[in-house]
């Protein structure tokens, strides 16, 4: 097991380097860091522009891209990150806050989605074709068909705008982590601000997991070894937990690992609409400004997380399913 994990982990670094290089090229082509620097800082001196080019390694030509990439990579590793185009800020403090906010929102939302979704999926699969199965199945279909921005805007309309109109106060705020000007930590306010975004995300993930779990468990329940398990005369509860769920959870666990890995990327649409200062919003703002020095570290965090959790998902899969050959 350990050998398998290590052998897979060895590939982590080359994958990271290759993918970040591709992203580097795509971003330099797409955002044109030089043009966006000039656009954001009008009437900037020639000297400043040269400094900016040197700091970011924005050399032209195919070789310039390779050279620029390695200069960027070295700077990134040695924590000598170039400052942002807009406002010339340090990138890390800003990115760190965004990361913390996203992880908090994402983890709560995924937990709700995974727990509730799987519970629904199990309930549906245990009585296939019955009322509760039909309810879960079509509920999930509807949940998947509602785009997150629709539920986000409708929830805002209902709980903020109209609640205000009818009852004189907004039940849930529609933006930020804290009200403007708030200082310090306040759990209650934080939960209040997270409530609507969490609901928006949970609708989707509950739908995904309930369908996934239902399909997975139905597959297991129809397999021959379930009959063997029942023929032993063990309790139905043990049959379901020890034999059915144990097998049905294998693909679901893999999906959950991949999902948690994606949490770091933030929930771009939700964060954008709720002006929640997480990774998703960080990206949208940086992308809008064409802020190359902010986008690259963001990408590294995302790619690193996706690749790492992919690896973890594979290891979990191998751990849970002895049929996977580790050799």
């Amino acid at each position: 097991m350990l050998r398998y994990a290590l052998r897979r982990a060895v590939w982590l670094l080359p994958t990271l380097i290759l993918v970040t290089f591709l992203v580097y090229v795509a971003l330099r082509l797409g955002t044109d860091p030089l043009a966006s620097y000039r656009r954001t800082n009008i009437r900037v001196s020639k000297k400043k522009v040269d400094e900016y080019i040197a700091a970011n390694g924005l050399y032209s030509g195919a070789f310039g891209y390779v050279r620029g990439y390695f200069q960027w990579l070295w700077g990134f590793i040695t924590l000598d990150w170039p400052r942002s185009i807009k406002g010339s800020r340090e990138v890390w403090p800003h990115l760190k806050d965004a990361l913390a906010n996203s992880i908090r929102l994402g983890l709560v939302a995924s937990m709700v989605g995974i727990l509730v979704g799987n519970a629904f999926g199990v309930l549906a699969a245990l009585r296939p074709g019955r009322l509760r199965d039909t309810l879960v199945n079509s509920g999930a279909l509807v949940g998947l068909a509602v785009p997150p921005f629709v539920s986000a805007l409708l929830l805002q309309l209902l709980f903020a705008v109209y609640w205000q109109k009818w009852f004189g106060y907004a039940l849930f705020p529609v933006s930020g982590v804290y009200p403007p000007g708030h200082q310090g930590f306040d759990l209650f306010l934080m939960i209040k601000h997270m409530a609507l975004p969490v609901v928006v995300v949970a609708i989707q993930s509950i739908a995904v997991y309930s369908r996934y779990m239902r399909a997975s468990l139905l597959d297991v329940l129809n397999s021959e070894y379930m009959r063997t398990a029942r023929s032993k005369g063990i309790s139905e509860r043990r049959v379901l937990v020890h034999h059915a769920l144990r097998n049905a959870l294998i693909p679901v666990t893999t999906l959950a690992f991949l999902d948690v890995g994606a949490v770091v990327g933030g929930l771009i649409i939700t964060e954008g609409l709720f002006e929640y200062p997480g990774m998703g919003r960080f990206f949208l703002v940086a992308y809008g400004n064409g802020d190359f020095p902010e986008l690259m570290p963001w990408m590294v965090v995302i790619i690193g997380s996706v690749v790492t959790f992919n690896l973890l998902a594979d290891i979990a899969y191998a751990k849970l399913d002895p049929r996977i050959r580790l050799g």
Partner: protein
Amino acid sequence: MDPVLSIKDLRVSFRTPAGTVQAVRGVSLDVQPGELVGIVGESGSGKSVSFLSIMGLLPDTATVTGSAVVAGTEMIGVRADQVRSQRGKKIAMIFQDPLSALNPVHRIGAQIVEMIQAHQDVSREAAHSRAVELLDLVGLPQPDVRAKQYPHEFSGGMRQRVMIAMAIANDPDVLIADEPTTALDVTVQAQILEVIENVRQQLRTAVVFITHDLGVVARIADRVEVMYAGNTAERGLVNDIFAAPNHPYTRGLLSSLPSANRERLKPIIGAPPNMISPPSGCAFRARCEHATDACASAGTALVRVGATETSCIRASELQGSRQ
């Protein structure tokens, strides 16, 4: 001697979208301790369904009536936990496809231990060493090593041995073997039959061997029960059935067996009847060359003709005409 398994007027039907399927239509059968009874029939003749119903392993869509007493305990029409407490203890079952009958994520040893601990109050260690003994008994080499392995590390034949070891873990009175050799290679088939025969001799377990392979039955069974369309068509000692079959269906089955002194196989023409609306009278009459008008109102009771018991009402006259 009292039978260890006594089935009386067993009926099983399934609700399906197309209508109610009458899979088993009044089967009665006694099995004596240590006896090996072969149940023969085509797919859909109700042979597997009968015994799954006794084990209480049929889905909710099935309705089961009649009686089946296993070593003194009624299994039909009683509370589910009463059936469960006997299942795996007094009556155990092995299935057709050993490749999918074992849970892929648990070790072989653990799966046998689970079976033992379900019915015996023993420690995990004791159960485990018993499991290793059982694996040894069914002829698995290096049983202590094998017990720690997963099903995918075993061949089909080895997995079927594991299934047998598991089934006999609690020394059951009756072992139901549901086509245990059908999915296996011919050479492996013979080994599995040998294991079953050993088990029967060493543990005095009665075995009900369900198959559509008459060759297998001829090799190991004491008695044969031929099933057709949810009823018993004919029963008798294995030699009598093979030597002097009285039901046209049994004769059809036998003549579709290849053998050295026959030049051409003679398959049975036609297909088994639709069990949603089974025909009245003898269900075989549409495919039977001897059918007469009387067959349309024939009952299903078995009558002794010669050495066997058969449901064919024309059996004795046909027997006369053949001689």
